[in-house]
C-alpha cells in the first residue's frame, strides 16, 4: 500500500496524464460528469467527490461534497454550468462529507430542490428536503431516477439511485476504493494494477465497520441482483473512482475477496 509520506501529496491540482492540463470535471457520457476531489489518508487517498447530471430543466448535483473542498467544488460547478449553478441536489444520505455544502450552495445558487431519503428530514437538518423512499421512481428537473436499497452503506437512510437515461448507478459509500497519490482523476479500471485490489479492501475495512460480521455471499448476492436489474454503464461512487461497465466484473471479484478477508478478521463463518 501507499505510505503516508506519499499520501500527503495534494490532489488539489490533479492533472490528467493524457491531456497534461488541470482537469475540472470529467465527462462520463450521457450527461453525467465526475467532479473529483480527494483527501489524504494513512494508506492512500480517498475520493470525496460529486457528480453533475445534465437534466432538461437544469443541473443536478449528486451529493454536495465536503466543506473541506467547498470553494474548489463551487468554482468548478460554476464553470461546468456556465455560471448557472445547480437546480437540484439528490442527496444519498445526510453524512457531513456528502451533505456539508448544502447550506453554502443554497446561498450561492438559491433555494434549489433537495431530494433526500431520510425518514425524518427535520432530524437530519434538512427540513426543506423532498423526501424519497426506497423503491420510488422519481423525476428531478425532468430526468428519471430509480431509488434503490443499498447493500453497502453506513447510515440506515442511505439510498442509491439509478439514472435510467445514462445507465449510471450512483452508489454513495458503496464501491469505494483508495487510490495512490497522483491517480486522483482516472477511473478505477485505469488505476495502476499494483495496489488496486488492496485499495478496495482498505476502503471497505475502514469505512463500513459492520462488514466484519457480514456473510460475503449475502452481500455479493444482493449486489449481483441489483446489477442484473439495473445494468450500469458506469458505477459512480463518492469515495472511489467511477467504474466503467467493462471493469465491473473485475471490481466485483476484488470486492468479493475484500469482503472475505474482512469477515475472516472477525472469527469463523462456521
Amino acid at each position, binding site marked *: 500500500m501507499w505510505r503516508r509520506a506519499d499520501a500527503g501529496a495534494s490532489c488539489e491540482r490533479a492533472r490528467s496524464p493524457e491531456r497534461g492540463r488541470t482537469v475540472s470535471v470529467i465527462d462520463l457520457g450521457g450527461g453525467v460528469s465526475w467532479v473529483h476531489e480527494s*483527501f489524504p*489518508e*494513512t494508506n492512500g487517498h*480517498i475520493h*470525496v467527490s460529486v457528480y453533475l447530471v445534465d437534466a432538461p430543466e437544469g443541473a443536478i448535483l449528486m451529493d454536495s461534497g*465536503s*466543506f*473541506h473542498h467547498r470553494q474548489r467544488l463551487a468554482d468548478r460547478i460554476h464553470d461546468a454550468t456556465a455560471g448557472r449553478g445547480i437546480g437540484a441536489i439528490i442527496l444519498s444520505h*445526510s*453524512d*457531513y*462529507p456528502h*451533505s*456539508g455544502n448544502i447550506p453554502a450552495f443554497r446561498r450561492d445558487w438559491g433555494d434549489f430542490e433537495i431530494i433526500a*431519503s*431520510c*425518514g*425524518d428530514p*427535520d*432530524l*437530519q*437538518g434538512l*427540513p426543506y428536503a423532498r423526501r424519497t*423512499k*426506497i423503491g420510488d421512481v422519481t423525476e428531478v428537473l425532468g430526468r428519471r431516477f430509480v431509488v434503490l*436499497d443499498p*447493500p453497502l*452503506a*453506513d*447510515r*440506515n*437512510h442511505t439510498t442509491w439511485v439509478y439514472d435510467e437515461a445514462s445507465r449510471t448507478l450512483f452508489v454513495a459509500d458503496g464501491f469505494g476504493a483508495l487510490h495512490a497519490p497522483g491517480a486522483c482523476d482516472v477511473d478505477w479500471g485505469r488505476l495502476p494494477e499494483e495496489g488496486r485490489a488492496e485499495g478496495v479492501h482498505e476502503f471497505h475495512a*475502514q*469505512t463500513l*465497520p*459492520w462488514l*466484519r*460480521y*457480514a*456473510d460475503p455471499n*449475502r*452481500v455479493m448476492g*444482493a449486489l449481483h441482483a441489483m446489477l442484473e436489474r439495473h445494468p450500469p454503464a458506469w458505477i459512480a461512487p463518492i469515495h472511489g473512482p467511477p467504474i466503467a461497465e467493462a471493469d465491473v466484473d473485475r471490481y466485483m471479484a476484488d470486492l468479493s475477496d475484500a469482503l472475505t478477508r474482512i*469477515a475472516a478478521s*472477525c*472469527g469463523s*463463518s462456521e
Partner: protein
Amino acid sequence: MPTETPAPTARTEAGWRRDVWPGIHWIQELGGHRAGIARAVLESGADWYKPGNELYVPQNAYLLTGERTLLWDTLSPASGHILLPALEELLGERPLDYLALSHPDVPHAGNTMQVLRRYPDCQLVAPAAGETHALYHLDDAMKVGPEDEIDLGGLRVRFPEATFLDAAIHTWMSEETTRTLFTVDWMGFPHQSGESLRRTDEIATVVDVGRLEEFHSRVMFWFQYVHPHKVTAATDALAVQFAGYGLAPAHGLPIPGADAAPYYERMNEVVRRVAAGGRGGVL
C-alpha cells in the same frame, strides 16, 4: 415493578430532561409521531402499543455532572432550542467542561457548534477511531479510545470500542461509578405517549424482542447481511464485560443494571430475525 409515580421531569419548551441516575441527567428529543412504525407495530400484533397513542423514536443526550461536567451527544439540529435551555438550567453558573460525541451523525452531533459557541472553553472530545476527522471538523478535538479515561471528579468515563456501529468514527462510553454503558445506536426502541423520560423500570409495558426489532431492523439494516452467530458472539461478550451495568441508549429508554441481562439475549433473537427476514424499513 412498574411505578405510577411521575418521573422527576422538567419541561424546556418542546423538550424534556430529568435526572436518571446520580450525576447523570437525561435530555430527550422526541421528534414527531412515527406513524409508519406505529402501523407496523399494530400489524405485528404487538400488545405493548395502544392504538391512537403517539409513537416516538427519541434522541437522547446525557449530561454528566461530577466536579467537572461532560455532555454526551447533542440531539438533532431540530432541537437546539431544547438542548441549550436544558443545559443552562442544569449547569447554572457551572461551565461545561467536555462535549463528547459518540459519532458525527447529524441526529447525535447536530448542535455541536451551538454548544461550543455557548460554552467556548469546553473541550470537544471525539472518537479516535477512523481516518477522516478533518471532514467532520474533528481534527482539533481530543481523541479518545478504549485506553482512555476522563476523571470528572466523582464520575469516571471510559470509551470502550463501539461493538455495533454504522460509521468508522465512533465510540461508546461507560461511566464507572454508576456502572452505566452508553450504547449509542444499539439497544434503541420506540416508546409511546406517557413513557417519555421514563426508565424501563418505570413503564407498564414490556420491551420485548419485537419492540427492539422495530428499531434495529431499520437502523441496523445490515443485520440482514450478517452471519448471526458472529453478532451474537459479540453480544454475549458484551453481556459478560458489562454485567450489571445499566444501559443508556441514544434512541430508547435507559435500562437499569439489575434488569439489563435479558436484553442481551433479546438482541440475539433480533439479529436472528432480521438476518432471516430482512430489514424493516428506514428510520
